[in-house]
């Protein structure tokens, strides 16, 4: 076991008599044979890192390698996009490195060849838990940001259907419910990521907020966003307006829209929210979800829709479910029907090596057995090349 004796004390006594020490109980022959064989790896950096930090230029050669996201991009492109564990890793290593993997490369290929005259194509990233769907999505988002697309990135749709404290009855439509906090946070992040578009895009209708405030036709979208941020009560409506306008104007050809939703199975699942009279709220009754559903429908052109399924935060779904059919349900599947599924799987051996190399370079693996061949084999066995599991395992070492 790579875990030292002093660590994981809580697990030690749970292991039954197989409380084995690496140095003690191994077969005598094998101890003599295994030394640190780092020799075959002449240039480790060549394997685990690439100097291309522009996703536009990523191709087959960079497969399996980590590329660095500059800090500027991190702030503008991903104000809210990255998963929390990855953010912790970024903070620890003081650099954000994403691995270039096959599913992401495939998606980038498709995106490069999109025909903007056709309706927006939907791509769904699906896979087992912890295989890297969210980070692949982030890679794609980075790519599109570099290509100057307008990014509509909803980091976790599942956060909108659970644990919401305040629900207001919508001013726009009496039957629906507003979520002011979530909407306003999202608007803030949207503003940070798409600053330059906000002044370019003009609103094509007049919107009346209340007796005193209204947005005139022809004013920039930025005003709507400001209104949503300052007046939290109208934040949800602001979000709805933004989505509607973008949908309408994307076909004009001035800009391309990328709709990136993580955890899209939230839109068609169940919610854990209840009204004051304890009756369950269906997702349609939440204004945010309703608008998002309209956005994800492919009746507009001039962009692409990239979606990710997520079992981790999903409600009322078994842990082993990972296929679109299971997670989206019949309704969701029908709504999303013509889509391109992209499977994200565990690391290939090359990618696994690259990941370990990356951790070693950053001095993340402190255990003395970690760099050795046996250590890698153990890690491979224990994590079964699952990126999420590997990350959690290495956290202890």
């Amino acid at each position, binding site marked *: 076991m790579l875990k030292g004796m002093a660590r994981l004390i809580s697990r030690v006594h749970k292991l039954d008599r197989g409380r084995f020490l690496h140095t003690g*109980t191994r077969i005598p022959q094998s101890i003599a044979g295994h030394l640190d064989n780092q020799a075959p790896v002449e240039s480790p950096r060549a394997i685990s890192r690439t100097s291309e930090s522009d996703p536009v230029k990523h191709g087959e050669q960079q497969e399996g390698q980590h590329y660095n996201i500059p800090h500027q991009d991190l702030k503008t492109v991903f104000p809210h996009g990255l998963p929390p564990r990855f953010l912790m890793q970024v903070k620890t290593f003081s650099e954000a490195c994403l691995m270039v993997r096959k599913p992401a490369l495939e998606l980038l290929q498709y995106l490069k060849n999109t025909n903007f005259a056709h309706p927006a194509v939907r791509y769904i990233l699906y896979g087992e838990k912890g295989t890297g769907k969210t980070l692949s999505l982030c890679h794609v988002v980075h790519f599109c940001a570099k290509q100057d697309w307008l990014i509509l990135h909803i980091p976790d749709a599942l956060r909108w259907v659970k644990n919401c404290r305040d629900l207001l009855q919508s001013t726009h439509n009496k039957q629906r419910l507003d979520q002011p906090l979530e909407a306003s946070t999202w608007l803030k992040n949207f503003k940070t990521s798409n600053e330059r578009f906000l002044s370019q895009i003009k609103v094509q209708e007049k919107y009346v907020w209340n007796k005193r405030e209204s947005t005139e036709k022809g004013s920039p979208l930025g005003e709507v966003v400001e209104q949503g941020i300052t007046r939290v009560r109208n934040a949800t409506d602001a979000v709805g307006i933004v989505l509607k306008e973008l949908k309408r104007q994307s076909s004009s050809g001035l800009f391309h829209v990328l709709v990136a939703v993580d955890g899209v199975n939230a839109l068609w699942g169940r919610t854990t929210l209840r009204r004051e009279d304890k009756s369950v709220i269906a997702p349609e009754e939440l204004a945010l979800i309703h608008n998002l559903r309209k956005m994800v429908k492919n009746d507009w052109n001039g962009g692409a829709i990239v979606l990710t399924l997520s079992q981790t935060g999903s409600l009322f779904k078994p842990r082993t479910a990972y296929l679109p059919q299971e997670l989206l349900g019949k309704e969701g599947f029908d709504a999303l029907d013509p889509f391109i599924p992209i499977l994200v799987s565990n690391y290939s051996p090359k990618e696994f090596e690259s990941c370990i190399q990356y951790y070693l370079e950053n001095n993340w693996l402190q255990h003395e057995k970690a760099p050795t061949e046996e250590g890698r084999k153990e890690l*491979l066995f224990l*994590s079964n090349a699952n990126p999420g599991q590997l990350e959690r395992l290495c956290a202890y070492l």
Partner: protein
Amino acid sequence: MAAPCVFCGAAGFYRFFLGSRVPLAQRQGIWKAAAAAELQTGTRSQIVRLKHVTVVTTKKNVAASRHETYTADFIKKQLEEFNIGKRHLANMMGEDPETFTQEDIDRAVVYLFPSGLFEKRARPVMKHPDHIFPKQRAIQWGEDGRPFHFLFYTGKQSYYSLMHEAYGKLLDIEKRQNQLQAEGLDLEKTKTKDLIGSRWLIKEELEEMLVEKLSDQDYAQFIRLLERFSTLRCGAAEEEFVQRFRKSITIQSKKQLIEPLQYDDQGMAFSTSEGKRKSAKAEVVVYERGNGKIKVNGVDYLLYFPVTQDREQLMFPFHFLDRLGKHDMNCTVSGGGRSAQAGAIRLATAKALCSFVTEDEVEWMRQAGLLTTDPRVRERKKPGQEGARRKFTWKKR
């Protein structure tokens, strides 16, 4: 039976002589063992000093503290009955009475008297009287009261006579050796051969042999004396004397069954075995060549065992034999909980790997504890307690 008329005067004591089989010690009153024996042998009509007189007091369970004495006649009669009974039993079972062994008797008894009792010692049994009645000493003194053995008054006559005999032999050997040395014929002989593969009798076995209680110091002294024999050159008679006190032990690992390898259609060798732990049963098929992929009940092991501890258990046999990525495995497991299932699979894997591995490694595995079924099972809840060990909350009043 001894003439009851001698004591007829005492009223109400008829039940004293209900059957000769009833052990004397159960009777009320105080009897001297010697006196009782004399009574039973009966022909002597001397005055027997009896102190039983008219006391009707019931002494509770005096029998338990007394030794039960069986006379030689009694044992002989039991032996005759046993032999006759054996022949009858053989006839009943339709087998040849001449070659009816003890195992046959046991089988016949189990067949004829099926018992549902859990305690094995409470079930009906038919064995040679020597096995049933504990060995007892015959009367150690003659008619005149003089003891037969010259060491009777030491209290532990058999033990001291044995020591005396052994020491006498030692002296003989030394004398012989001195004679040979004086004559100049010096032959060297190694003595270690008889010590390997056998052990000294333990104290209980020695006590059984001598029909006498020993203390720990006595036993230690005796063993030390016997060990002196191994330093000297002894003849055949002395060797035989020493061998009487040694018991051979079988080498543990020879008992491990090694499954034969089986070959499937493509010529790939595989090996199957089963394992159990705490009500979980697992059956495992290990293939000789593979990538290290493991499937449990048709599901990948990463998904079946999300907890790292369980996967560590699965890893242990492979890691111990240094064959981490070399075998493929297919398991089916049922029952128990997650930890029990992991333990069951581990045991089954270790047993299956025995057939791919040298005998030495099998011995190492056995010493590491990989091949032993864990005997711990859930302890039964007892009445009057809340659980197996936990008592109800103690209230002072």
